């Protein structure tokens, strides 16, 4: 009689996530593949030329014929220029602050946009991996199922043949 079939080899250690293996090839994609691009601009909204235009505060026009070349006139010029300069500086700061806040918010918005895209890619990866796993499972289940049924049929046919042979042998034994 045929000997008892040998036990199968040990299954060994389980594969490690994220690595391909010869014994356990990765089914489906290995990594989420994404190309991320955002249209949220983080460039400064007010450029240098615009800022200069904003900061160009006009000096009040000094015109009083009787005050030209007098100490009073110098005071007025000083006052007017100081007003214009301080206004100009304040406006420049305001424009710069606007730029800073705008860019800060834009950077945050862009990071959220990219994160959202990455999450979508992750979902896609999960879906693709699940699909590939399921399909490979189904394929394996079908192949193994066919093998099971075939082996069962083979055994049944063999048993039927053995039964016929045994009957024949019994008949021969009776003859002797």
């Amino acid at each position: 009689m045929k000997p008892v079939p040998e036990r199968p080899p040990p299954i060994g250690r389980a594969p490690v996530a994220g690595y391909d293996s010869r014994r356990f090839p990765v089914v489906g994609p290995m990594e989420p593949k994404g190309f991320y691009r955002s249209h949220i601009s983080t460039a400064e909204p007010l450029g240098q030329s615009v800022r200069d235009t904003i900061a160009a505060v006009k000096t009040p026009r000094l015109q009083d014929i009787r005050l030209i070349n007098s100490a009073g006139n110098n005071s007025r010029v000083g006052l007017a220029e100081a007003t214009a300069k301080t206004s100009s500086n304040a406006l420049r700061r305001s424009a710069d602050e606007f730029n800073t806040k705008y860019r800060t918010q834009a950077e945050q918005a862009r990071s959220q946009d990219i994160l959202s895209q990455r999450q979508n890619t992750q979902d896609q990866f999960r879906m693709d991996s699940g699909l590939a796993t399921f399909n490979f499972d189904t394929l394996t289940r079908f192949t193994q199922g066919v093998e099971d049924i075939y082996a069962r049929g083979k055994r049944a046919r063999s048993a039927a043949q053995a039964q016929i042979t045994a009957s024949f042998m019994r008949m021969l034994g009776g003859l002797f």
Partner: protein
Amino acid sequence: MFAQSGAGFLPSQFQTQKNYATTLSGPIKPDQELARTNRNESMAKAAFGGDMRQFNQQAGKGVEAGSKMSAFRAGLLADSEAGKAYAQAQQDKLNMYADQKAPELAFQEKLAGEQGWLRELLIDKKDVQNRERMASYKRKADVDLQKYDRTMLDAQQSWENEATIVSSLF
């Protein structure tokens, strides 16, 4: 300072047949022409106010009337007021640029958000389609396997019958 932005076309209804298209029209900005007009008016007022005060000296022959000192004081006040108005005019300009730029970022953020929702919808759709395809594949495997199983059972039964019949002959 700014009047309301005039909306030339204000749609009250929106409809589309597309499943995965964005709906935002674009950055909604205040009227730039209006802002420019306001700024120009501020500039004109600044110049006019300053000029008026400097030319409008006190008349008559009273104490200090028409003196250099009165002209100086009037001039100082005029310069101060004109300076404030010029600064305000430039502030208007800053506001104009800022008001034009701020909606752009808002629009980009909104658009990115809507695109994110649409991507989720697309993935959801694909997930549904995937499940349907997976079910088809599984169904095919099940049906074929069961069919083979039935065929094999029939064959087994025929072999058993054959064995029983042949055995009875001996």
